[in-house]
């Protein structure tokens, strides 16, 4: 996996709370056996009307959303189904970080394995970001800080091991495979 260190971009704002993974990618797009090309299905029922025409009022369809790599979302983003297709779709669309006050557990775990940063910020920062779409901000994984346009730095928490893997391009499966002696010993101990 390619290392992830920083994301610097304008934001696109989706203020809805409790956005579930069925909205991020509806179930009818899960019939794929690949992880590629899912960006076209991202928020399909919010981006497109019943005839497949883009809804111009939807945040991701606005011209200023073009090239935005940071999604600011309402609280409890990514709740519901465990489908990893949700972060796959976001990544394929070009989103590299999601900012909210809370991000659902399974979604967060899936996102981190795909180089998509789940960034949890305090309520005041969140409120400001929701109210100011399109601002250019920087997320720095090394220092675990988000820098606002006025230069103010906001810290965010991130699981240390996931951070280490992202910064160094470490593959988690490779790490787990390196634990084989401990796993062998555990199985032998249990069999006794």
């Amino acid at each position, binding site marked *: 996996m390619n290392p992830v260190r920083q994301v610097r971009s304008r934001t696109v704002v989706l203020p809805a709370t409790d956005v579930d993974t069925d909205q991020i990618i509806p179930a009818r797009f899960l019939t794929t056996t690949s992880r590629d090309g899912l960006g076209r299905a991202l928020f399909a029922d919010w981006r497109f009307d019943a005839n497949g025409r883009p809804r111009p009022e939807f945040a991701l369809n606005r011209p200023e959303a073009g090239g935005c790599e940071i999604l600011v979302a309402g609280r409890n983003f990514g709740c519901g189904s465990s489908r990893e297709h949700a972060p796959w779709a976001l990544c394929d669309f070009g989103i590299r970080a999601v900012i909210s006050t809370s991000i659902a557990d399974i979604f967060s775990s899936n996102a981190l394995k*795909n180089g998509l940063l789940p960034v949890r910020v305090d309520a005041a920062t969140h409120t400001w970001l929701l109210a100011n779409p399109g601002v250019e901000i920087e997320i720095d994984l090394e220092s675990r800080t988000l820098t606002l346009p006025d230069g103010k730095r906001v810290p965010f928490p991130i699981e240390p091991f996931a951070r280490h893997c992202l910064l160094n391009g470490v593959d988690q499966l490779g790490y787990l495979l390196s634990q084989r002696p401990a796993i062998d010993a555990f199985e032998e101990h249990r069999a006794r």
Partner: protein
Amino acid sequence: MTALTLFEKIWRAHEVVPETADTPAVLYIDLHLVHEVTSPQAFAVLRERAIPVRRPERTLATLDHSTPTDPQQVFGGVPIRLEAAARQVAELERNAAEFSIELLGLSDARRGIVHVIGPELGATQPGMTIVCGDSHTSTHGAFGTLAFGIGTTEVGHVLATQCLLQRKPKTLAVEIDGRLASGVSAKDLVLAVIGEIGVAGGAGHVIEYHGAAIRALSMDERMTVCNMSIEAGARAGMIAPDETTFEYLRDRPRAPKGSEWERAVGNWLKLPSDAGATFDRTVTLDASRIEPMITYGTNPGMVAPISGRIPERGDEAFDKALRYMGFAPGEALAGKPVNVVFIGSCTNSRLSDLRTAAGLLRGRRIARGVRMLVVPGSQQVKRAAEAEGLHEVFAAAGAEWRESGCSMCIGMNGDTAAAGQYVVSTSNRNFEGRQGQGTRTLLAGPATAAAAAITGRLTDPRELMTEGEARWP
């Protein structure tokens, strides 16, 4: 010695490597359930990197999410109509064969929804860690297991190493005292819990349900409760094993036999949380105050007693949800028209659920213009229901009786409702478009769903129950 919770006991027994500040725990997984939708990309990684499945015997695969429920398509009279579903079925068949994993295939008599068949086969046993690429894996917690949903990358991790990298979650005790009133189900109970703590109320936590009302539940009902834990945002839900658990598991095909059974029960009896064990948080509810519940919005936390009204006001999400649902604040729920009724899903598709629905439908017909779909949770449930003649009750009432699968809960297999339709569903999610683009889902228990089918309107099921029927289950 430290008093431990059920969760901590299972966690400790499966720590291959404990967590440190820098690294998560390496947690051993006893049972890995696999289905066709969230596994293809994981097998692809193994194939690419020439890694075998470490423990095929701890892996069990089935087909449920995108599979048809039409008998002809299931048993090969006609091909699977949806090409993408046919491809996923073929892919899992190929992967299971190549990696030597047992697959309960399309025409297998033991096939069914992954969270129905694990318990039914006795593969789900107290004290285990169980994972699956499906968030409703929490269902298995009803047996005193630590069971949770994972993403596809993690499916690959478990296939390759039988382990997961995990941070230890916090614990939340949900204490349900008192007794459920007659005509009130386990689904009503868990919807009330979600209404109380909210859809993110359990985030970062594993819930342990306890209290008199939980102890009084059957295994089918406990599974309904644990199943919905994820809808409160929890990582998992658990209930300590007891005689009810052991009675359910005894003589199941994969349960231990003879002296091994005795030894297993001896170990399982040590699992319940010790007296004095502490939880990070505790929430208490009185079961006797719970009524038949129904959701009115677009997440399971937007829920009210069916005899009640939609709240007068809420936040932006509430307003948005009501616009989607075509409802107004303050409206009464009972009496609202219904187009489709779905009885099924890993939440409510077991034999007792079908009996409840059939109990109300016996001698009655569903309302004109209502479509009702009854989808048993497994082929075994289907046969057991047919042996009791339940399928004839459903058919006589005008409902469709299908082969097992996830069906209209997720709507991947073509079993969907039309845009704008109101679906009273015994499933677990009322998200926008969950049961087909533009559909409006109202979650409820099997009795409330059957009552809606009969009257064509949202109806308190107790109005249609005689004194005897209202006694639960």
